[in-house]
């Protein structure tokens, strides 16, 4: 099996091309800003006699959701940028020809790259999200136990994007694939917001559209599931949720849909790349 060689090569590329360094520096800045915001916000809330400590902690929870939403968005962008030209781009440049002529299965190239991207995203999301959760817990002295489930769900959301982008990259050019993935990602984002609005308006059709979009691309649904882990009640109140949280927690089916989505997109990538003429 050479998949681990390809995965290692993918990671090494990220290090040597300073993608990791840039991401790390920006993440440190992002986390510092987040920590400062939480500290200042919580200090002001505590000094306000009209705000109870519970409400203050809850509002800081919303701040955590907002911070993680931003992190999830950055991770989504990272997932798309990393993988959208992972196969087609290398084919266009000709850098894959010498590698594919080696005793390496095409499937090992696809799975190796997928594993490399996943590992990068896992480290990025795991470290950053954990730092944010710990920051809030330290400042407020309050930690929702299920918060630790949010980072794996955020990773799952990014993995579905990687799978989708690699499926596209195995068949179409990088630019066309980028347009397709961004369009689907944005549509899922908007449809997810509509789903939350549908709950407020009690509109069944709008809600179904949101659910359907979650099946087409479950990134938003997985994020909703992740954000729901940040609230004691499994979902935010209307005031808390805004556009970044979840008024109702998605069911466990979301995980299954996510897994199926990933299996289908990776299957397409494996099949199409396996049959593709260089």
């Amino acid at each position, binding site marked *: 099996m050479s998949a681990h060689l390809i995965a290692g090569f993918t990671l090494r*590329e990220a290090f*040597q091309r300073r993608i990791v360094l840039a991401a790390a520096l920006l993440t440190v800045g992002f986390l510092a800003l987040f920590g400062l915001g939480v500290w200042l916000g919580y200090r002001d809330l505590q000094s306000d006699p009209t705000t109870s400590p519970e409400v203050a902690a809850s509002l800081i929870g919303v701040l955590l959701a907002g911070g993680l939403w931003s992190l999830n968005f950055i991770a989504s962008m990272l997932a798309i940028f990393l993988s959208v030209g992972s196969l087609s781009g290398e084919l266009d440049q000709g850098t894959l*020809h*010498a590698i594919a*002529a080696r*005793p*390496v299965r095409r499937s090992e190239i696809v799975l190796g790259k997928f594993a490399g991207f996943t590992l990068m995203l896992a480290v990025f999301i795991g470290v950053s999200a954990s730092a944010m959760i710990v920051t809030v817990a330290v400042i407020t002295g309050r930690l929702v136990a299920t918060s630790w489930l949010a980072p794996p769900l955020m990773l799952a959301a990014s993995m579905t994007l990687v799978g989708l982008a690699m499926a596209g990259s195995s068949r179409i050019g990088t630019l066309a694939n980028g347009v397709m993935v961004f369009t689907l990602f944005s549509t899922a984002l908007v449809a997810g917001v509509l789903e939350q609005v549908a709950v407020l308006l009690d509109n069944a059709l709008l809600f179904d559209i949101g659910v359907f979009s979650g099946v087409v691309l479950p990134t938003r649904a997985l994020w909703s599931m992740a954000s729901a882990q940040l609230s004691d009640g499994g979902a935010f109140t209307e005031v808390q949720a805004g556009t970044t949280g979840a008024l109702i927690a998605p069911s466990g089916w979301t995980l299954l849909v996510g897994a199926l989505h990933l299996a289908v997109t990776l299957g397409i990538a494996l099949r199409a790349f396996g049959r593709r*003429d260089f």
Partner: protein
Amino acid sequence: MTAATPEPAIQVTDVTKRYGGILAVDRVSLTAAAGEVFGFLGPNGAGKSTIVKLVLGLASATSGNIQVLGRPAGSLEVRARIGYLPETFRFHEWLTAAQLLQFHARLARVPARRRAGRTAELLDLVGLGARANERLSTFSKGMMQRVGLAQALIGDPQLVILDEPTSALDPIGRREVRDLIRGLRRQGVTVFLNSHLLSEVERVCDRVAIINRGRVVAQGALSELLETQEVDVRAGPGAAEAARRALSAEAAASAGAAAASGEDAGRSGEAAAHDVQVTADGRLRIRAASDAQVAAVVRRLVEAGVPVYDVRPVGDSLEDLFVRVAETGDA
């Protein structure tokens, strides 16, 4: 008892490749024997790169069969025994030369204990030993081609497929590559050389195939392919007619001898008009089928009383053959 014939390094049998409605390769058959340097020629767009990709398993044939080193093309076992320099020689430029070779050594399943030594040895071989730890992004085109050559050899391959290996090299670099190819042949490595540089092909190749419009139009040992050659003859008055008669008589004699022995008679006894032409400076340009036929025609001219002053071969024969093939689609 007869000695067993070693299996061909590459055996392409009746292979066709279509890209949608475009016929890129049309019922091509060719054979590269083990241990030889095989030249693959053809005009741009003739189908050379497609054949190379089919042999490597980077593309799949629409129909036909390709065996490489006795196994189906593209199988992992075969690819472990092949080295390949792509025409574009594009590699990941964030790597150093040594890192590129080490990575390919791992992909090629070179044992860990040999990787470092083999890397250093090959970088020295291609003249890049001193720049092993420099990033490829700082390399010139020629240096990239050299490191690409080293990459092709990293797995100690039995078959090396070189797609335009000297296109970015200066004359010294080209000579070095020719020496390298000769060295591979001495080691028993088969080299499949796809090149536009006919002089290069002529200098190092044992056999060649010429492809045009997706079909192989000539294939064989260089000496055989160039047997149909032209000579420039400076002779006295009446030479053209006498030469045509001589050529017809010689061809008829050959046909008669072939028929008597039951072989294919080949060309008819009539000399084609284009076989004897008069050039602007009054010389005769005779296209004969073999060296023996040239000698026979000259002898008949002399016997007919036509004075012959000078006979010399015309130009670069492989180039002539290539141009003729490119223009007419026929060898």
